[in-house]
């Protein structure tokens, strides 16, 4: 199955919305049913294609949030207000039974193998948590002992996607750490600053066996270069940039 997920021709398939779950004020999880879905690996994404009545098409990538073994596929989409695609997927109009096209899973680089030895550092900015959550969920489902630390940067506590689940999964070698860059709730004891070399040096004093960094492009650039500056071997750092596409 793992092999099948990266092999073969890509075809567009119809995805049916089975459920929509709000995560934060701006992000929603879409539970999808896709006939013939070949299975995926944690960290992979799919391409979504929307077609309007006049035939105009828009295509975007969305990471798969669910663990590989779950039979239902979950995406989590954060709404970008002036966007073309995300306001539809994460907006108020999408309903159970709605359909759109997807192809995938795609990507063989930004993937975590649960049989890989060594500790893992996950660094997320905003919706960059989505592919990392697939890894966290797979780790939990397989009761993997791999020591895993997550540093998740969000604007505020209310912007933290999967907040309750992350807190529930803490322990047994999984340590979620949060940094809230704009506002913090009263009595907040977590971090409250941008992800930079000093913060990463505290969170990962020694280079982990594998590091995955995901989020908006400027966030990924800053975090990855800070890690390299801290003498983490570049070949152990994998990055995925969500955009924006300009610049």
């Amino acid at each position, binding site marked *: 199955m793992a092999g099948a997920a990266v092999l073969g021709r890509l075809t567009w398939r119809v995805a049916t919305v089975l459920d929509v779950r709000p995560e934060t004020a701006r992000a929603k999880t879409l539970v999808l049913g896709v006939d013939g879905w070949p299975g995926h690996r944690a960290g992979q994404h799919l391409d979504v294609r929307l077609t309007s009545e006049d035939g105009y098409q828009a295509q975007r*990538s969305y990471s798969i949030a669910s663990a590989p073994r779950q039979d239902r596929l979950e995406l989590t989409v954060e709404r970008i207000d002036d966007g073309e695609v995300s306001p539809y997927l994460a907006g108020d109009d999408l309903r159970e039974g709605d359909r759109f096209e997807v192809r995938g899973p795609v990507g*063989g680089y930004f993937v975590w193998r649960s049989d890989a030895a060594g500790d893992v550092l996950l660094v997320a900015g905003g919706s960059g948590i989505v592919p990392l959550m697939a890894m966290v969920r797979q780790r939990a489902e397989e009761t993997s002992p791999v020591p895993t630390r997550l540093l998740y940067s969000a604007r505020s506590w209310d912007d933290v996607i999967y907040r309750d689940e992350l807190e529930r999964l803490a322990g047994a070698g999984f340590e979620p750490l949060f940094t809230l860059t704009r506002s913090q709730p009263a009595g907040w004891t977590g971090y409250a600053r941008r992800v930079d070399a000093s913060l990463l040096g505290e969170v990962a004093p020694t280079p982990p066996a594998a590091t995955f960094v995901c989020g908006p492009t400027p966030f990924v650039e800053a975090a990855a270069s800070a890690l390299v500056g801290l003498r983490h071997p570049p070949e152990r750092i994998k990055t995925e*940039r969500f*955009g924006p596409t300009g610049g």
Partner: protein
Amino acid sequence: MLDGNAVAGLLQEVFGTDVTAATGTCASCTAVDAVGAVHVYVAAGVVLRCPHCGSVLMRVVRSDKRLWVDLRGLRSLQLESI
């Protein structure tokens, strides 16, 4: 700016298999990187650039039912054989 992950689907159309985990050698500076890690710019077409020297590694343009691929900047591509 994006990276090679963002065009995994497009490149799978071109090569028939995933190449984001494959490593490419830059023809200009000989740096070796996973295709998933190289820089990607999206405009009328897709341009992949070397993250070390900025040279164009690959360009892909779609028109109607054709894909046009320029691989001049890539000295070699190494895939894991399955």
